[in-house]
């Protein structure tokens, strides 16, 4: 993939148009994008705007411009800067929903397996694997310095000697580190059905094919039990 001077991937104009049309076809789009007079109240209240070059006002304006290139410009990095807190939607006097537009664009990015989506979702593959294998989102053995930089300088200590620390917790912990709680196979099978119906497996196949293969093996195993 090649990128222009703004870090936006270079694609044909027809492709940009196709993506914009896909967004506009979403049943929520009309509800989310209304009038906008650049009052800036959305961006004024936007938490990520304090830290990043991200502005819900620009999201709305780019959509209102009807220029597929401007919308495409948000597809790589921009859409992933939003916190999805929907403060913008709560205060916009026109009842626009820039956060909702971001959700639509992110879903397109994931459905189509864009590089940026793959990059952003990579850390979550551990969670997905744990979820499909054990029905748990998070277990003690997932606490590793590489994955929890936001835990600060104590993450090193927190990730050592897990079995011993686990034993010290004065409540039932299964005495294992790969599970937080036990999930019945029936519940797991129901979860797979939901994933299938909701298209989650399909999304995983697009975003991370090798993860998909591993997950399918686990699903087959549990289902044949």
């Amino acid at each position, binding site marked *: 993939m090649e990128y222009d001077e703004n870090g936006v991937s270079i694609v044909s104009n027809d492709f940009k148009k196709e993506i914009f049309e896909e967004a506009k076809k979403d049943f929520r789009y009309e509800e989310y994008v209304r009038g906008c007079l650049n*009052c*800036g109240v959305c961006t*004024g209240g936007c938490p990520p705007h304090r830290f990043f070059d991200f502005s819900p006002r620009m999201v709305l304006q780019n959509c209102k411009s009807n220029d597929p290139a401007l919308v495409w410009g948000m597809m790589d990095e921009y859409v992933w800067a939003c916190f999805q807190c929907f403060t913008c939607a709560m205060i916009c*006097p026109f009842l626009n929903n820039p956060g909702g537009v971001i959700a639509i664009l992110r879903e397109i990015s994931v459905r189509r397996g864009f590089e940026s989506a793959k990059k952003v979702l990579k850390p979550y593959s551990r969670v997905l694997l744990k979820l499909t294998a054990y029905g748990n989102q998070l277990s003690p053995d997932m606490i590793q310095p590489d994955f929890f930089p936001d835990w600060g300088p104590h993450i090193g200590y927190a990730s050592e000697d897990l079995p011993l620390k686990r034993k010290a917790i004065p409540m039932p912990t299964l005495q294992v580190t790969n599970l937080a709680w036990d999930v019945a196979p029936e519940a797991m099978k129901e979860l797979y059905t939901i994933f299938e119906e909701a298209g989650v497996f399909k999304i995983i196949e697009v975003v991370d094919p090798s993860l998909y293969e591993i997950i399918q093996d686990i699903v087959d195993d549990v289902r044949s039990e």
Partner: protein
Amino acid sequence: MAENILVIGGGPAGLHAAIELAELGVNVSLVERDTFFGGNPKKFKYKYLFPDLQPAENVIGELIKGAESNNNIKKYLSANIESFKEDGKKFSAVIKSSTGSETKTFDSVIVATGFEHFDPAKDSKYSYQLFDDVIDIKDLERMMGEGNFTRPSNGKPPKNVAIILCVGSRDRHVGNQYCSRVCCTVSVKQAIELKEHFPETEVYIFYMDIRTYGFYEDLYWKAMEEHDVQIVKGRVAEITSGPDNTVICKGEDTLLRGPFEIPFDMVVLASGMEGGPQSPEMADKLGIELDEHGFLKQANVTLSPFKSNKDGIFLAGACTGPKAIADAILEGGAAAMDAYIYAKKNS
């Protein structure tokens, strides 16, 4: 025999209508719910009226004097219309006041029940009533009318003041989609007054659009050119408490500086105008229509703006939508003409 006309509401529109009709020899019954005439300008002690900054007291005082000194006007204070019904082409109304109930027959009726100021506490992002130094347009007008320009929290002169436009107007969240028309002009006027009183005070106006329509355009030029008022494009998203007894306005300067969080000594919310509870009450009592914004509905907004949808009942002033005092007075006269013609034809 002289015509009998009922005027409901003793604000600028109702007073002017009553005086004009009385001058024509009509027997006017002027019904006012408050204990005084003069409407909101009197109630909230407006100080100066735009655009020429003449004292509100002179204008309203003149109208009150005109009504009080005219013997053709029967004045009812602390009064309301207890019941109302049509009687052929005429109307029969029971007026209840402190002196008791009175049943009268009228040839026509003028409704001039005015507006209510939007209560900014209804929009929580502005923290009105949470911080002493967050006040609104009518609070400041009253304060200035009393000669008080200082901070409510400590009585000291403010180092800087933020004026926020479009509070309770043009906002689907609060349910008022319309522009209240006068707040821009009043706010710019207040900014100039503040600067004249405290030249050292920094005054900011945060706007979505400045709508000082027509000749009032001069006013914000004056504010910028003569008083260095900072006019910033961006609606404020949140007001929180700040250090040293300040309130912080958080928003986006959409044209120049991007995100801002500025501590202010005082914030003035330019709250808009609403039809108030009296509009549906009148609609219900008189059997006339309400529009989708909560004001009384004009029969035809261009052709017959002073007629209601019911023959013989006419409308004047801010009860049909936000407007300036000059416009309300003008409408009082126009509705008086319509009501007089109707009465003349049918009496």
